[in-house]
């Protein structure tokens, strides 16, 4: 029997997840509700089958996620009997930090990066799984699978520990931690193929449907609730759209699409000329912006 490319990726990821469960005292899986997180969760369930996943999941809630994402998250947690923590940066909420008037940079920093750091400190996690892939973005391409973070959760890209074979250095001091990326070697198309083959449930936002949108800064933004104030020159249109990545709704651009099944999405993807992160407003702030955010402690 020959293992296919996907079979190899699947086993590699399971190996990584088991290694963390063996070597760390208090790991957590960062669950973002998106497709990559869904695949990661699915792999974690396989890694420990027939037992329950031996660690908690955590969602960093910015309070600006799409409503459908939150519903989906709670359904999954209930249906799969998961230990799910939800953390919100309450200080950010009190200071009314939001993606619209505070701007994407401050909102992301306070409600995602700072919030994540708060939660990691609060629960004293020594390892945190993330669903990032190396093909997503150039600075991710250089990150280790086991990526060291100092006591202040910072990443030092120029001083990464060499990572050879599948031998992972899991030794850290008190207060330090690692971020672990079991999906490092998966590409976007691999993820979709796996979702199809394994029939992994996804947030419906990935599939095309008539949704209310406005056009702002050349992007289509979905009107998910009344916190998005419609300007005078804007009008709500009903468009058949879907999302290639999911985040805070005012920062996540929809794409026009007819793809309403996984098969149709894969076909659309093969014909696409644009990368998935293109729909993310926060990546394009400045050259090297992801690298800067990651050094500060971003996912």
């Amino acid at each position, binding site marked *: 029997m020959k293992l296919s490319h996907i079979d190899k990726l699947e086993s590699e990821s399971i190996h990584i997840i088991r290694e963390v469960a063996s070597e760390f005292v208090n790991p957590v899986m960062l669950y973002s509700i998106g497709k990559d997180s869904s695949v990661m969760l699915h792999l974690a369930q396989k890694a420990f089958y027939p037992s329950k996943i031996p660690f908690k999941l955590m969602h960093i809630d910015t309070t600006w996620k799409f409503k459908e994402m939150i519903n989906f998250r709670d359904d999954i947690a209930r249906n799969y009997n998961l230990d799910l923590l939800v953390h919100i940066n309450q200080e950010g909420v009190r200071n009314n930090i939001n993606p619209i008037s505070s701007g994407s940079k401050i909102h992301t920093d306070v409600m995602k990066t700072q919030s994540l750091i708060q939660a990691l400190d609060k629960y004293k996690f020594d390892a945190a799984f993330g669903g990032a892939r190396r093909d997503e973005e150039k600075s991710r391409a250089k990150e280790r699978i086991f990526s060291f973070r100092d006591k202040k959760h910072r990443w030092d890209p120029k001083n*990464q520990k060499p990572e050879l074979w599948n031998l992972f250095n899991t030794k850290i001091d008190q207060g330090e931690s690692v971020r672990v990326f079991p999906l490092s070697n998966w590409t976007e198309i691999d993820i979709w193929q796996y979702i199809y083959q394994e029939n992994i449930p996804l947030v419906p936002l990935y599939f095309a449907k008539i949704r209310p949108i406005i056009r702002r800064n050349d992007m289509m933004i979905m009107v998910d609730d009344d916190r998005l104030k419609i300007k005078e020159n804007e009008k709500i249109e009903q468009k058949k759209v879907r999302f290639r990545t999911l985040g805070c709704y005012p920062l996540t651009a929809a794409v026009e699409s007819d793809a309403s099944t996984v098969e149709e999405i894969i076909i659309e993807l093969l014909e696409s000329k644009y990368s998935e992160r293109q729909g993310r407003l926060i990546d394009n702030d400045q050259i090297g912006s992801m690298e800067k955010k990651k050094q500060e402690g971003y996912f």
Partner: protein
Amino acid sequence: MDIETFFQNQNNKKQLKILTCGSVDDGKSTLIGRLLFDSKNIYSDQLSQTKIESEKYGTQGKQIDLALLIDGLQAEREQGITIDVAYRYFETEKCKFIIADTPGHEEYTRNMVTGASNSDVGIILVDATKGILDQTKRHTFILSLLGIENIIVAVNKMDLINYDEKKFKDIISSFKNFGREFNFNLQKFIPISALVGDNVFQKNTNISWYNGKSLIDELEEISLNNSFEEEIFSLPVQFVNRLSSDFRGYSGTITSGKIKVNDEVHVFSSKEKIKIIKILTPKGESDFAVKGQAVTLTLDKEVDISRGDLLCSVKNHNYFLSDQFASHIIWMNKEQMIPERNYIFKFINFQTIGKITDLVHKININSFEKIASKFLNLNEIGYTKVALNKNTIFNPYKNNKKLGSFVIIDQFNNQTVGAGVIEHELRRASNISWHQMSINKNLRSSINGQKPCVLWFTGLSGSGKSTIANIIEQKLHKLGKHTYLLDGDNVRHGLNKDLGFTDVDRVENIRRISEVSKLMVDAGLITIVSFISPFKSERKMARELVESDEFIEIYVDTPIEECEKRDPKGLYKKARSGKLKNFTGIDSNYEIPSSPEIILETNIISAEELADEVILYLKQYNKI
């Protein structure tokens, strides 16, 4: 397109992990950019981003600089060099590729080794205008050391030498000349131009004299039957799954061979035979599983198996249970590798303390000469003997890459400082057995009404170690206790007179003293050791040789200014004037103990009173 056909094609594609290596400016990043670009694996927003960056940092005038697609980290984009390993993904009709892009500079050899450790094929880039360089030889050597069987030598920048056939052939023959001693399974030579795309994807008429395939065609045809790897079942136990009370399974990734339900296998450590009842693969319960799959097995009986153990087929195999082996090691840290120092050795499913007992030779990786040396510096490769502090299961790297490889971790700063491949076992350990003596430590020491221990004094030269140690020994003698004082200076006149003051010799100095004090503790003595002993790791080594309550570390804390003022032997003066090299506190480091049992501050309290403090400690802990 029909989606099922698409998936079928995807599943038939083979996965190929390739490594590009070559000297600085040979065009590695450009080649990878070209592979992504020509295979249409670049999205147009990424391309337009690269266009913006090309205008800012590009080296190709108005043309788009494909290397910028690849050089991920900002510092690299600005300096125009690759400083780390980057992984890239692209696919063709037949193949899914994962490329490790590694730097060419000699100071980044460790990154190249990292990339090579996970690759199936090595592409060695040679700049046609420069020919074979030292780096070419170094990279070829590393590929061979790490067991890469397939290499492609891509002679790049053919456009700059007007596609000159003779020059290409000269490069081939000089490569073959030095490459003779390496045993690659497949070795191909292709003339290319990554910048214009000649012979990367498309064959080019500019090089009509070349009859071979393009680079991508050659890669797609490589078959990955690792000819040397054995096919006997082995599974290192990674995780014991008994998270629910009614289930007990053993999880891990199969590193060689295959397994079926009802097969009989060995638990390697206990040699017990067990039968496989269930195999849980990622695809669900199955009758069998193969190499590369992450599985969970259930067995016919309850046996004692934990992480670190190995399940393997009952048939003959090459596994060894031993605590010593010979290996090639690549050193990856600025702090040099010192023989006899304790490090953590991490293998596929366990880690243990161990040390490199001998550096047999190091290798000049540009000329392949073997050179005698006492230590390894950053990026150097050596042939070594390794001793671990417990018996472990291993297999030579050439039989099984997963079981024959390890990384070395510093105990104190947690850095990955080295990596190694196991060549063969050393049987020495199993031939020496311990003689069981009928009179033991407890019987010896009970005659004197004492418990043996080591009082280990550490501190700068002139801090007062020997003075206090001396008073303590006198006091203990008066109390009728049996003692022995090992003093740094005195021992250097006898047992250690062959050692100097380099870091390597200091480590050996302390190692011998540690072993001597262990013998003295065994003889039932209160052993007083007074040595500068500047390094944490050697003090830790000394501590670990005896029982945990037998080692009392005493840090004599005197500020260096005070030591220098006292200067009883005039050594600080000599060191300051440069007549004495490697003097602790001046041009050699002293690592302050982080949790000694006792701290003595000599500039506040007299030596007599400090000695009493230590005596009191010994009484409190029932040593006397």
